[in-house]
């Protein structure tokens, strides 16, 4: 397939209803969530409606993009745009995690030591500066999540999935479609395994370790960071699945496969964040 790259015009899509549909979906999702959180009737239905509209939008919109891509309407300049955009998007995601990592850092380095300092003893007598901590008003004890069980296995899983996705990429570049597809499948499998173990870990935490969202700041930061990361893994697995389906349909060429690369970057990003989590949440 040849691309009349530098000569063709920059692709400007025709008018599209999908953005508006997406906005409606988000309005429904937000309203539904607000209603549910405040225990008002029918919130659940609104929320489900929002998800449905969102799904329609995603299918419609991405279908369109895939069609445009396969119809060779993207020249090299468009390809460069995609790369730039993906890089900036990942940067914004990094900053999202920075907020939560920053909170954890602040709590461990500033808040807990401060609460346990002699100056605050008049308010919180006997509170000591140890981590993990559920705060000075904590009542029932809990057990911390240890690094060298499931979390270590999960680290291995994610690291190897980084390898498999790269292996798949080599396959794509070398035009070995078999290797591409198997590599992707392995990556998805490893991701799914990771998620399964995480669900198991959460159940363990709730049922045996008395470690919950409500377990002071340790519970708060633990579930917020790992949960937000788990959500990203889920997104990543979904995107990998889309790429797998497209690969099986014969999409992508050895030279032009931004969609694959974008997802691979995203997957590596999720991977790197996990390493950070592993070190600061489980290990230290």
């Amino acid at each position, binding site marked *: 397939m040849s691309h009349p790259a530098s000569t063709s015009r920059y692709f400007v899509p025709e008018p599209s209803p999908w953005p508006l549909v997406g906005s409606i979906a988000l309005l429904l999702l937000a309203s539904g969530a607000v209603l549910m959180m405040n225990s008002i009737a029918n919130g659940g239905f609104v929320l489900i409606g929002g998800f449905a509209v969102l799904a329609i939008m995603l299918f419609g919109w991405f279908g369109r993009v895939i069609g445009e891509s396969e119809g060779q309407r993207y020249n090299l300049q468009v390809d460069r745009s995609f790369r730039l955009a993906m890089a900036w998007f990942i940067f914004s995601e990094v900053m999202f995690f920075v907020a939560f990592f920053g909170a954890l850092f602040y709590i461990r380095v500033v808040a807990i030591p401060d609460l346990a300092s002699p100056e605050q003893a008049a*308010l*919180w007598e006997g509170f000591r500066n140890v981590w993990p901590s559920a705060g000075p008003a904590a009542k029932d004890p809990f057990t911390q999540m240890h690094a060298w069980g499931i979390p270590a296995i999960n680290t291995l899983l994610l690291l190897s999935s980084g390898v498999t996705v790269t292996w798949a990429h080599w396959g794509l570049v070398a035009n070995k479609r078999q290797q591409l597809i198997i590599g992707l499948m392995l990556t998805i499998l490893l991701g799914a395994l990771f998620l399964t173990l995480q669900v198991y870990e959460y159940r363990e935490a709730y049922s045996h370790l008395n470690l919950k969202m409500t377990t002071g700041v340790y519970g708060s930061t633990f579930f917020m960071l790992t949960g937000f990361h788990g959500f990203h893994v889920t997104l990543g697995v979904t995107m990998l699945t889309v790429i797998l389906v497209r690969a099986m349909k014969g999409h992508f060429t050895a030279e032009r496969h931004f969609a694959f690369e974008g997802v691979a970057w995203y997957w590596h990003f999720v991977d790197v964040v996990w390493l950070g989590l592993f070190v600061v949440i489980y290990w230290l």
Partner: protein
Amino acid sequence: MAGCSYKNGYANRLRPGFTGLLTAGLLALLSGAANAAWELNLQEPVTAVARRVYHLHSLLLWVIVVIFIGVFAVVAYSIVVHRKSRGHRAASFHDNTTVELAWTIVPTLILIAIAFPATSALVDMRDTSRPDLTIKVTGYQWKWGYEYLTGDAAGVKYMSVLSTPREQIENKAPKGEHYLLEVDRPLVVPVGKKVRILTTANDVIHNWSVPAFAVKTDAVPGFLRDTWFRAEKEGTYRGQCSELCGKDHGFMPVVVEVVSEEKYAAWAAEQKQELAAAAEDPNKVWTLDELVARGEKVYTANCAACHQATGAGLPPVFPALDGSKIAKGPKQGHLGIVINGKTGTAMAAFGAQLSDTDIAAVVTYERNAWTNKLGDVIQPAEVKALRGK
């Protein structure tokens, strides 16, 4: 001036002619003069720290005014002389490394020069060591709690609530001289002593502030912060809560009375006596009438801000107690919410603020006031038994 129905010294300050006013204001500001009647500057300082801040501000004002005049003198010259309508032809220069370096370096030097006085004033402000007297200040929605930790009055503890009558706020009565800046019981401190203030809060963040002392410190729930002052002049000094804390944020003033050492000692002795006299026999059995009478006072001071004197509340945020399921339900539930509050709402745990007797009284009152004529009596001993559950 339709809105200025009050009669006091300020009324004659407003004269028509806003341009004149603005020019006057500008001139006064430019000359750096403190024209007290116009309140154009910081309040008159009564501590050494406040005086330093005052002078630091004056210095800064001069610096920025000079910079402003310098920059806009050039602009004004251009506007007048380099006009197209006067036939001025545009030059075409667009770079000059020397001047560009100059106007990077010169401002930097100015800033470095300012940084010295700014730093030393701040270091002074934060030095809370070796106080003569320590007082803990707790912010509540919407009143201040004072507790003397050391000194003559150690152990004295009371609430300080806005004393401006409702009618004045609702424009049904002429406003008094210290409208919104007056309380039932001010903080009393001796003149010339280093007073260390420890702040904290019970519900949301408040801020304890007295401009004349250059004191302003957040009261953060769950944390203690500190600040200090050494007032040099006897008198009454007023400030306001300076962190948005909900509905009545504008109605929780700070009033500090600075008195001579003798007066302070006398005041402290009196307070301690009252404290001893007020110490109640926890096992005393109260009658319904006694409890309701006392409860009404407690209610007005602590609960009426939200639940209103009529018990009608301000639904949907502040529920009515008149006819409320909880207030007419079992005693335990009613006592429970008053003692422990409800997290995530404005309903605070009053167990920490009120004595057993006060809680017994206020709950008895609520169960017998308005249409809640339940007729039951709650004794302090029952409150004690429920605490910590």
